[in-house]
Structure formats: structure tokens, C-alpha cells
């Protein structure tokens, strides 16, 4: 992988995108997202199996009900000194908080969000829109550096093999040592053409947002 591709690969990663390398001079940028709104989907994030509330990674004292960080404590409540700290669901209406028998049993196992309870599960509902559906969004990405405000596709030496509906070109516009901008093109739209750079972005994250767009809930 050449240094320019590697630099862009790291920029994708810094923006939450996974990179997969080929033997050729392009790579795949991929992300697991909500199938309805495009918001990132985190399989390492856990939810309460009972009510769907997100794991907030907090302890709660069952005596004085204070929340506290799961690491700053020495397993004693910072308010009342009690040792009854549990990784409880933060939804007060959750069955694990409302049903006395269930609450007591779960707390003996460390709380809903303690692994021993067996009552936490990887993310099932979108954080942004509440959808139950996720999918992989993936694009083939070729990187080229351009010094002029126009490029000729035929001079870019893009392998025919990488061209498909999902292939994109990231142009790094670098006319001098000071300026660094980016523009994204769907490769099929540029085939055989001379293309002006008319929508340059100052920040790489704008390129990522263009590829992995999100319909944010109000």
C-alpha cells in the first residue's frame, strides 16, 4: 500500500470506517449501518435484553440510588459507602428494576449489564431512528493526487477491474505544500472524461459523510 493510500485509509478509520485491502491499488471502505437511516451500528455496544435500553457503563447503588463510574469506584458507593453497587439498567421502568424478585436475582449476578446476568445483548435497535435493521455499506475506493483544477480520467490509470456501480474515486487536490482538499466522484460518472474539480472539501470527514450519509432524526 502506498503512503497516499495509507494516509487516506487512516483518515477513513479515524472517521469510523473499516478498511479492507486488495492486492491492487484500491481498497474497500465499509461500515455497518442502520438500513433505514444510515446511522452507525455498533456490534460492541450492548443493550438491556429486557427493555432495549443502552448500556451506560455505570454502577448504581441499590441503597441510595446514586449512579457512579464503573472504574472510579473502589466497589463502594461514593455517597453512602454501601457495597451494593450493580450495573443496573438505567431505564427505571425496566422489568429488571420494577419486579422485586427479578431485580433481586439479577443484582445477585451483578446487574443486567454484568455479563454474568446473561441479560445483555449486542445492539438490536438503531440509536438514531429505532430501526431493528442493519446492513453493510461498502465502496471500492481509488485514491489519486491531482495538482490541477481538472483531471483527465484516462491519465489516472484506474484498473478496469475495480470499476463497478460501487466504485468511487477520492481526488486529493494538492497544488502546493499548503493546500490540501478532497473531492469524491463515482467512477462510472467520470469514465473517459476530463473532469473539473468543482466541489472540493476542506475536511476529509465531509467525504466520509458524503459516502456514508445519515438521515438524522429531529
Amino acid at each position, binding site marked *: 500500500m502506498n503512503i497516499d493510500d495509507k494516509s487516506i485509509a487512516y483518515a477513513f*478509520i479515524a472517521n469510523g470506517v473499516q478498511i479492507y485491502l486488495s492486492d491492487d491499488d484500491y481498497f474497500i471502505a465499509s461500515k455497518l449501518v442502520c438500513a433505514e437511516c444510515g446511522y*452507525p451500528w455498533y456490534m460492541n455496544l450492548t443493550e438491556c435484553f429486557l427493555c432495549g435500553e443502552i448500556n451506560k457503563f455505570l454502577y448504581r447503588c441499590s441503597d441510595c440510588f446514586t*449512579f457512579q463510574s464503573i472504574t472510579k469506584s473502589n466497589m463502594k458507593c461514593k455517597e453512602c459507602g454501601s457495597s451494593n453497587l450493580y450495573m443496573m439498567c438505567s431505564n427505571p421502568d425496566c422489568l429488571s428494576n420494577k419486579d422485586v424478585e427479578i431485580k433481586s436475582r439479577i443484582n445477585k449476578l451483578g446487574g443486567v449489564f454484568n455479563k454474568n446476568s446473561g441479560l445483555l445483548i*449486542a445492539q438490536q435497535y438503531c440509536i438514531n431512528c429505532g430501526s431493528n435493521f442493519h446492513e453493510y455499506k461498502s465502496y471500492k475506493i481509488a485514491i489519486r493526487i491531482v495538482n490541477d483544477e481538472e483531471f483527465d480520467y484516462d491519465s489516472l490509470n484506474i484498473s478496469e477491474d475495480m470499476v463497478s456501480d460501487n466504485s468511487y474515486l477520492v481526488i486529493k487536490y494538492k497544488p502546493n505544500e499548503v493546500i490540501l482538499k478532497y473531492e469524491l466522484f463515482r467512477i462510472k460518472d467520470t469514465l473517459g472524461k476530463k473532469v473539473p474539480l468543482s466541489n472540493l472539501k476542506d475536511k476529509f470527514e465531509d467525504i466520509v459523510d458524503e459516502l456514508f450519509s445519515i438521515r438524522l432524526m429531529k
Partner: protein
Amino acid sequence: MCDEIKFPSNPFEDIKPSDFNKLNKKNVTEDFIEENLKELAWDVFKPFNDTGIDRIAIKTVCSDGHTEIDENLRNQECSICGKSGIEIIRFIQIKTRQLKNNVFGFTLKSKDIRIDPRHVYLLYSDNTTADKQDFIIISVKDFLSFFNSNNINPFAPTSFRKGNNKLNSLRYDHVNDKWSWGSYDWELFRNLEGMKKIQDPKIDLNLASEIMATRNLANSLLRSFSKGQTYSEIIETKIKSELEKNLNLYKNKAIILELRRKAQEYIELNCDEDTLQSSRNYFEYIKLIDTIGENSDSMSEGDAQ
């Protein structure tokens, strides 16, 4: 054409796959798989970071399924029907194991159950015999569908959500040279047969409906609960009822969003700023390991807090 292809075959002539021990075999086994997929004309991509998908494989095939198992229709039309090809993509999660008492034992966690049907499990038996290796290749949809159709649910026990639910039903029968799950034949997922199934473009052509079908399968299996030795029968009954109620309720997306909004509001009312910041830091850490993998030394769990 299939009958002429040896798959998998060892691409590394200087070493036997069975000669690698547990400590150093991840790289070589994944390379072994990659080279074998390339032999079937897939374009294969390896992860920059170790994040759970071990390889991505891409191929262009005829939308009517005319493409041979070792053919790639890239930039060509189908020689049978003249249609141009469509690009299919598979996200491959690899589990390599040695047989123990003829059992291929492996663990799946809830984070491994994706509902995008292009997600594929490739179970690599690297010493079916010293000279024979096998791939069991199965899409997540077929995997869930198998359990659903046969009234088996390995996802209901608490051990699945604890992350230590070892699946020990996949077996190899040396006498008859056959793979099975319990008493069910799994030859249809073995080697070239498995590869044929995942080359089916219907998944890609009908992606939205296939995702919905996979989610329905996942919900019927994952939103199930068996008490094991951890909980009482009374608790089991209450939890099952709650799961069923919420699964129906949350078909209305606004309800789960409102529940989470209220819980967040409750947390904010009842936490000091340091505690809230700790919670936010942890969330950032989770986002990070989804992208760069858990083994990264750039940040540890402790840093998040």
C-alpha cells in the same frame, strides 16, 4: 466443472495446514482461505484492522445464476443468457478449529449475529485428516434458518448472551466422510457446495427483503429465553412475556426511541458531570473498538473511564 476442482487445496506446498499450532495459525489459516477463494475467482480483501470480518470477497456473476463456481464475469456478459453481470459481496467471518473427538466446537456471541444476509460464516476444519481440510460455508440467513426450521435454539440460553456458549453439534463422520449438525446433514454447506450457495445473487438482488427475512429469523431465535440454572421458572415466564411484549411494541420505532430518551433524561437528572463524562467516554471507546478492533494498543478499556 465442479468435479474437476479440488477445494480447498493447500496453496502452500512447503507446509501442511495441520502443522500449525494454535499460537501462530490465525494468519496462515486466513491466508489459506483467501488463496482458495481466489482460486474460485473471487476478489478477496483483508482487514486493515482486526474487527470481526476476516475477509471481504467480491465477484461478478450472472443475475440468472449461470456463472460457474470458478468464474468471474467481471466486464463480461453471461455467455449463456447475454446478461451483464452483477457484483456480489460477502462479509466473511472465519472460525478455524481442529476437530476434537470429531467435533468442530466454536463459540458465537450476540455481536456475531448480523442480519445482513451477505454475512457468511466460514468454519475451517484444518485437520479433518492430516491431509484433508474442509470448509463449512454458510450465510447467516441459512444458519438461522436451519435452527428455526428444526426447532433448535442455541441462542435462548443465558450462556449465549454471556458470550461463552460453545456450539458442539457440528460433527465429522470419518467412516462416511460426512458433516452433520446433530442428526442433520450439513454436506450442502461443505466446500464447493457451500461456495455455490453463497454465490447465489438473489441475496444481493433482493437485499432489502432478505435483510427483513433474516431479521425475522434472528428475532424469533434471539428474542427467546431459557432459564438454565441461573433463573427460576417464574422469572423465565415473566421474562419471556416481557420479550414478546417489547418485540411487538418496538415495531413502532418511536417507542424504543422514547424509552431511551427518557432513560437518558433520568440519567442526566441523577448523575454528576464526572459520572456522565465517564459514561460518554465509554461510549466513545465502544465506537473505537468497532472500527479498530479490541486488540489495539492505542487505547485500553481503562483509558475510557
